[in-house]
């Protein structure tokens, strides 16, 4: 029976081995039992590893080498904007003056950090075309919750208790309905039409005085721009609802189109997507929220403000605020990286980012049209969704196409999302990939399409080149083993 590639670190080593030596207390040392309630004293040591620094370093280095990553190869995971994470941003976030500062230090000692947050708030307002920004939310979903709770407070403040519904397109990301539900709203799904866009007629039937808001991603999760956006915003506002912008796809229009101009009342951005802060194996992210005049009073506190003499301070004196959504001031380390990213581009650079992202997506779509089913023919924005239905008919579904792509050194795209496309495969190349890399991706996908025809077994048993073969995901859920035990 083969073993784990790398043994689990817990239980490794031997008592007495130490990965790091801690300084002596160097003060009189009464036993802790003399100062703490006996019942609260720990009886059994936690079974943590007991290894030298070398063994710990080797363990995690060997684990790291089992990962695909942007710095290793193409990672076209749709809706995640896996663009390059610039190295100067990592240098900046580790500066002593930005890493080793405590949120409760007096503002006089934090002017540099507060200036970074203040400038980023201003820049994100300029970029989105809206009024005021809060950097507090820790990720996109957290920004969604913040936005939807502000919308809830807005309607309550107007005594408008009937607005208990939030409209969500059927193509929306799972966090949208989940957020609306967690915020206490009833979720009503709006259908997409044959163009893959919001079905205006269906929307209008569902717009009434019970609707608090419509949550939209533009371009939507099919990578298509909602061309009727001006008509949509008019209809929603006419019905007394507000318009929420999910910023996950903002890389398509960054510097080119602004949600504020489209009539959105509140936007969340994902700094770990559009603004290049690293995805970190699943996080941390940052989901700043930018709002128009209507929702400004309800922003979480504190907001960074600047007084006449140019000093920066934390303004918590906002009576209508929905309160805090997170301790302290948000993921400041991500604010530093986004700040550096915006500095590297300026307005023209950011516009070029979104243009190249759209160019790259269309370049791939145009060349994969022929072997793969394309549900929508019109040009896409920064990503496109194609279907593996033709290949599935020959015994190789989208999951397997993705597994085979791994053998070509490329991370599979997002699969089986959005749900409205059968055997969906969502491809988002981002602007940081070169033409050569895109050409290699096209030739890989064409080669796989040929393999499906000629040697399907190769695709069905993929991946072949990885240290572990296909993983049994059903077993993991049936008999969950979710921790190491001594």
């Amino acid at each position, binding site marked *: 029976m083969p073993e784990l590639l790398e043994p689990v670190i817990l239980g490794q080593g031997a008592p007495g081995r130490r990965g790091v030596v801690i300084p002596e207390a160097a003060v009189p040392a009464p036993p802790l039992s003399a100062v703490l309630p006996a019942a609260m004293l720990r009886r059994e040591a936690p079974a943590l590893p007991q290894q030298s620094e070398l063994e710990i370093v080797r363990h995690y280095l060997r684990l790291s080498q089992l990962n695909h990553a942007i710095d290793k190869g193409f990672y076209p995971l749709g809706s995640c904007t896996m663009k390059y994470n610039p190295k100067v941003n990592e240098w900046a976030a*580790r500066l002593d003056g930005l890493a080793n500062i405590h949120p*409760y230090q007096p503002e006089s000692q934090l002017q540099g950090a507060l200036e970074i947050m203040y400038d980023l708030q201003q820049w994100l307002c300029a970029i989105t075309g809206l009024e005021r920004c809060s950097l507090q939310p820790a990720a996109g979903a957290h920004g969604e919750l913040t936005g939807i709770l502000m919308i809830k407070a807005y309607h309550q403040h107007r005594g408008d208790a009937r607005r208990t519904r939030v409209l969500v397109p059927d193509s929306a990301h799972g966090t949208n309905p989940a957020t609306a539900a967690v915020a206490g709203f009833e979720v009503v799904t709006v259908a997409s039409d044959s163009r893959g866009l919001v079905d205006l007629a269906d929307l209008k039937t569902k717009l009434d005085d019970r609707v608090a808001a419509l949550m939209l991603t533009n371009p939507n999760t099919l990578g298509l721009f909602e061309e009727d956006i001006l008509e949509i915003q008019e209809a929603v506002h006419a019905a007394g609802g507000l318009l929420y912008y999910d910023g996950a796809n903002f890389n398509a229009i960054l510097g080119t189109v602004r949600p504020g101009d489209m009539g959105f009342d509140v936007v969340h951005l994902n700094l770990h997507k559009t603004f290049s802060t690293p995805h970190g194996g699943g996080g941390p992210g940052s989901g700043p929220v930018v709002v128009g005049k209507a929702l400004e009073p309800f922003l979480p506190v504190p907001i960074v403000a600047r007084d006449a003499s140019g000093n920066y301070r934390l303004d918590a004196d906002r009576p209508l605020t929905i309160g805090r959504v997170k301790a302290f001031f948000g993921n400041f380390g991500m604010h530093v990286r986004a700040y550096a990213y915006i500095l590297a581009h300026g307005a023209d650079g950011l516009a070029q980012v979104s243009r190249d992202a759209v160019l790259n997506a269309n370049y791939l779509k145009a060349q994969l049209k022929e072997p793969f089913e394309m549900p929508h023919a019109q040009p896409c924005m920064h990503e496109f969704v194609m279907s593996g239905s033709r290949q599935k008919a020959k015994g190789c579904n989208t999951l397997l196409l993705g597994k085979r792509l791994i053998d070509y050194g490329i991370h599979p795209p997002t699969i089986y999302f959005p749900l409205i496309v059968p055997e969906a495969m969502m491809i988002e190349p981002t602007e940081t990939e070169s033409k050569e890399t895109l050409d290699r991706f096209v030739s890989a996908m064409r080669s796989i399409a040929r393999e499906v025809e000629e040697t399907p077994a190769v695709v069905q048993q993929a991946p072949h080149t990885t240290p572990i073969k296909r993983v049994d995901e059903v077993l993991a859920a049936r008999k969950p083993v979710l921790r190491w035990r001594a």
Partner: protein
Amino acid sequence: MTYAYLPHTPADRAAMLDTIGVPSMDALLDHIPKALREVRLDLPRPHAEAEIQQRLARLAARNVSTSQQASFLGAGVGHRYRPAAVDQVASRSEFYTAYTPYQPEVSQGTLQAIFEFQSMICELTGMDVANASMYDGSTAVAEAALMAVRVTGRPRVLVCGSVHPEYEAVTRTYGQGPGLRIDSLPARSDLTDVAAATAALTPDTAALIVQVPGVLGTVADLSGLAEAVHAAGALLVVVADPVALGVLEAPGRWGADLVVGEAQGLGNAMSLGGPHVGFMSCREAHIRQLPGRICGMSVDAEGRPCFTLTLQTREQHIRREKAASNICTNQALNALFATIHLALLGPEGLREVATTSALRAHHLAERLIALPGCRLANPDSAFLNEFVLTLPIPAATVRDALLPMGVLAGLPLDTWWPERTHDLLIAVTEMNGAEDLEALVSGLTAVVTAQGGQRPQEALHA
């Protein structure tokens, strides 16, 4: 202008437009209403990398970091030693430039690290299962409250005074969703009296939330609390500090149903309050209601044991509006920092960090209460490494007076509770050696003894 992160040359763009079969970039965008495409952004000009470094170095230099002074600030953010190996290993490209491990065959590194994080949190808390991470301690507590409501079907949550005030505030905001009602007990004091808590329980109470050590550092004897909470049909949620669990009993052993909290103090920078890393652990019975990602073991096609995300049916990308929580991106990399940190410390190292911090805190407290007009706010409460010193003059005045001496004396409690003007929350850790303790004692002595005749500032420059 050229950009280091945009590879396309004019020739590349021309060739690609040609392959797409459109004359220009605008042709690809002309389905977007024209009015929306006339945009001029008011942003700084593009900066070369050397200019970015210079600008950020200057901004960093305008802050006063904790390495430049003796810092006694805690209050939910750990001023902890971070072994050099943690950042050097966790910051390998293969960890920080990967995303959520959707494809197990090319993400066993991230997956096993998550499994080890989950296992270590269970070892520390004494619980059965832990998720991959939450945003931070505050949102972990809020999600615990919502989870208790889901599990018990009850609408109220009882928050003890020991819980960090910002954690309670975040729970209130989250509570606006399901209309959760929060009772706090007793307002603004750290004392957790089992009897008083038990009395405040009602048939509507979904959970009692208690923090050990409390936000003011106290370690109450909570024997019997769990029994009382369970008897009332509620869940016991314990907010714990993983470093303190090096010496304090695992809450799972004294009846906790849910143990949550902040793990920033394990190898993560303070970074002005974020990114930190929340943890959330529960009993076997409540796994299906636990929010967030979870990694479990499986086998591959050749029978080799391996890891994969599992129980995803709880999550938003599958359950959508029925999901336990809307969390998608979490604090994976910060959890990795905590995992490597704990692996380096081991049980003995963690115990030593907690013990050294506590012993130094008790030694400091003894020396400070010898100063005129100074006393412990909770003289009868046991504490670990944080305590509240009541001063003869406003704590904010003392704090400001010590800044020029290179001492961050602690948190004046009127930051949270306006009426507690003369109370200073002092945290002591393995970072505060003898020099730091002397600096605080002499600084306070100068300020406090001077308050007899001169105003403190004058005393300083005498």
